């Protein structure tokens, strides 16, 4: 068994909550995994560490999540000497058994016997007319600006969309002293009340969410529920000047601002899994494609595992459990001893969180109907500046009823973001135009490079 520990090359991609807990569990079992992370520092997105030399304290940076962030960072610091940690390294492609990496312009390959993808999530965005104007950010982007660089995205910021991140980031802005002009949530109160039984699966998280809301009310931030986004106002030279929405009561509301943070919860980063040939499955509750794995994180491809929001959006707490669990799945597959009690604990915790995430999906639904209502002149794909009308014509005039076909004809999803910010909304537009379900139009196939790759990239001579 000692030989397996030494000879099995285990590579973890992503040093967020899932990747860190996974590495920790493997190290405890005597493995020395390689941990590759795109960021300069560990923590992932939610527990992103500030650059070296910045000295803001945990309470300021992470608010209600400070103690979890601190725990995770400390765990990581203890692991540093026991893993092969490669920060600032992008895995841009893979072939069976080998990762293609680039770090500071140098290309290298990393062989693996077992690969654990803890690639996290990015913002899930629904377009709105005018969202291409300077000053429109994703919620995650707004959060990174604050956490990493200690800057606000604007002087008067509107937070619009739905989901827990909407309230988390808005409250973080308030706490940091930024001016929040309004929080505009597309989800109506009724959905939240209906979702309550499921949300009570994690009373702590529910309470934390309510606390965020209370903080916003205390700070006298206008919070509107059940709104329908209409337009981001502004012009090309000076950027965003306001947003216009329809309120739950049907009135038009315009809020002046110079920045908007938009988002509807998260979507998994599945590109590497897709390139590895892992099967995906459609999740009805959140109406998006996720990675198909078993309960413990085995994908459909032997030797490839996944954990955390990169395979299934369940949040940071679940990612820590899933990271431990996926490590134990790998240990089991390597005929290593596994602590069954500890494994059951993780499985149980995840089952509870699964219920909670179903509650979240019900309370803050993905606004499919908005895609259908999107005016023809609204941009769907910001990278390529393709409008909803152009995409609809690819369906009606050229007969593209599948996402990749519509992409080939219209260019939606062909730009630098590789469809991260437009392909889900694009799929909704296509589905509505073709009169079929969004599941039927499929999902955009992943293509390398996972992120843009500089042509200055050179092979490291061995």
């Amino acid at each position, binding site marked *: 068994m000692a030989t397996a520990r030494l000879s099995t090359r285990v590579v973890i991609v992503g040093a967020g909550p899932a990747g860190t807990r996974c590495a920790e569990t493997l190290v405890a079992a005597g493995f020395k995994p390689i941990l590759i992370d795109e960021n300069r520092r560990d923590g992932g997105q939610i527990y992103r560490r500030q650059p070296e030399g910045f000295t803001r304290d945990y309470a300021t940076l992470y608010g209600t999540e400070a103690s979890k962030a601190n725990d995770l960072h400390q765990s990581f610091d203890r692991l540093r000497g026991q893993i092969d940690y490669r920060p600032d390294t992008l895995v841009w492609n893979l072939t069976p058994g080998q990762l293609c990496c680039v770090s500071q312009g140098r*290309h290298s390959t990393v062989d693996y016997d077992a690969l654990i993808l803890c690639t996290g999530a990015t913002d899930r965005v629904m377009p709105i007319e005018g969202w291409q104007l300077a000053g429109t950010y994703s919620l995650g982007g707004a959060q990174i600006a604050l956490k990493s660089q200690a800057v606000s995205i604007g002087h008067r910021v509107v937070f619009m969309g739905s989901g827990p991140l909407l309230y988390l980031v808005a409250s973080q802005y308030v706490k940091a002293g930024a001016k929040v002009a309004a929080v505009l949530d597309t989800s109506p109160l009724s959905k939240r009340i209906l979702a309550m039984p499921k949300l009570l699966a994690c009373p702590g998280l529910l309470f934390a969410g309510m606390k965020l809301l209370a903080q916003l009310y205390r700070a006298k931030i206008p919070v509107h529920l059940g709104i329908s986004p209409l337009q981001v106002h502004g012009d090309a030279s000076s950027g965003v000047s306001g947003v216009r929405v329809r309120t739950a009561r049907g009135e038009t509301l315009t809020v002046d601002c110079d920045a908007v943070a938009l988002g509807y919860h998260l979507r998994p980063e599945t590109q590497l899994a897709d390139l590895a040939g892992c099967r995906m499955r459609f999740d009805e509750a959140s109406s998006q494609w996720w990675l198909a794995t078993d309960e413990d994180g085995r994908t459909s491809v032997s030797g490839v595992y996944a954990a955390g929001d990169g395979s299934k959006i369940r949040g940071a707490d679940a990612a820590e459990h899933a990271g431990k669990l996926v490590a134990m799945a790998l240990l089991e597959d390597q005929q290593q001893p596994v602590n069954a009690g500890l494994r059951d604990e993780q499985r149980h915790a995840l089952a509870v969180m699964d219920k909670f995430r179903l509650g979240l999906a019900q309370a803050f639904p993905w606004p499919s109907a908005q895609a259908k209502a999107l005016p023809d002149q609204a941009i769907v794909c910001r990278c390529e500046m393709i409008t909803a009308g152009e995409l609809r014509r690819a369906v009606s005039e050229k007969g593209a009823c599948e996402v990749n076909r519509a992409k080939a004809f219209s260019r939606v999803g062909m*730009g630098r973001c590789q469809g991260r910010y437009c392909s889900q909304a694009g799929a909704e537009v296509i589905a509505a135009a073709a009169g079929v379900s969004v599941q039927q139009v499929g999902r955009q196939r992943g293509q390398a490079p996972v992120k843009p*790759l*500089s*042509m*200055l*990239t*050179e092979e490291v001579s061995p």
Partner: protein
Amino acid sequence: MTVQKADVVIVGGGIMGSAAAFFLRQRGQSVILLERDQIGQYASGVNFGNVRRQGRYLGQLELANRSWALWKRLPELIDDDLEFIASGHLRVCYREDEIAELQAYADAPEAEQLDLKIFRGEELHQRFPFLGPQVKGGSYAPHDGHANPRLAAPAFARAARRFGARIEERTEVAEVHKVGDAFSIRTTDGREFSAERLLVTAGAWGQKLSAQFGEPVPLETKGPQMAVTEPVPYALPTVIGVYTKIEEEMIYFRQIPRGNIVIGGGYRSKPDMLTRRAQVEPRSILNQFEQMRRLLPGVGNLNIIRVWSGIEGYLPDSLPVMGPSGTVDGLYYAFGFSGHGFQLGPGVGDVMAELISTGSTSTSILPFSINRFASSVEQRSKVS
């Protein structure tokens, strides 16, 4: 179930089959086109998009010229825009002796319509100041250009359909027989089609059908390697490719008016014919970077945002199989275009329509006859 009949059944909906369907309808033939997946999904949809004549086998230029005349009639011809631009094409080289070879090509009588001009040294770098210092010479074809391959085959198929052709996507041929004067085609979903003329335009899968009729050809499949950069201001209207005998130097690029630079060439990959997917090999991309920095030093600061491959059929002499069957009356082939079929597409469709409708062609396609493989196959079967 009723048998669906037409004058011509075409198997394979790439650009060759789609264009043939269109031109056959122009000649009044009834047409059914059967495509296993989607129109233009393989080689026709993923290629570089070169509408290039120079550098082709000289005996193919007559066909390429006929095709070029059709490209010039776009978009009116099919009432669709394929983003064709006659932007000029430059073939460059790194060695003095290669300039002489480019010169010999330009001097060939077959190449007369191409109006090729040879540039060398100082004159080359004044005319194309963005080229790297290692580039020694170039052959400039002012009328050649490029187009969008993702749009081409589907647009021809739509035009064919508007003129009355039946286009059946997701229709896979299971069996083909000749019964009397007619071909009987059964699909995997149990439908039956019948026609007196059968045109095989099945690209990398063409030899599967030709072999059924006793005409196997040594077709090999390869995956082209393509990459595209983020958009930058439109400054490089000329399509540029490297003339060389060294595989890794053999790259080409074009910039589209929206700004992205499309890059192709170098090493090719081996497609997986079971899953019908071809991968991009990371080493091909790194090689393209290295070669592009040599060819166009200013490119270094750019990022590539997407890479792709596809499935192309190659024959050993890099020439297609095109023309009537050598063994079966009423059977015609146009496949295996060996990585240079895109420009020929409209011309091949037109010529095959002419051949099928009239029995002969006004453009020579003799060098592409399937009979050129007949003797070697016979010899091989004797040996085994």
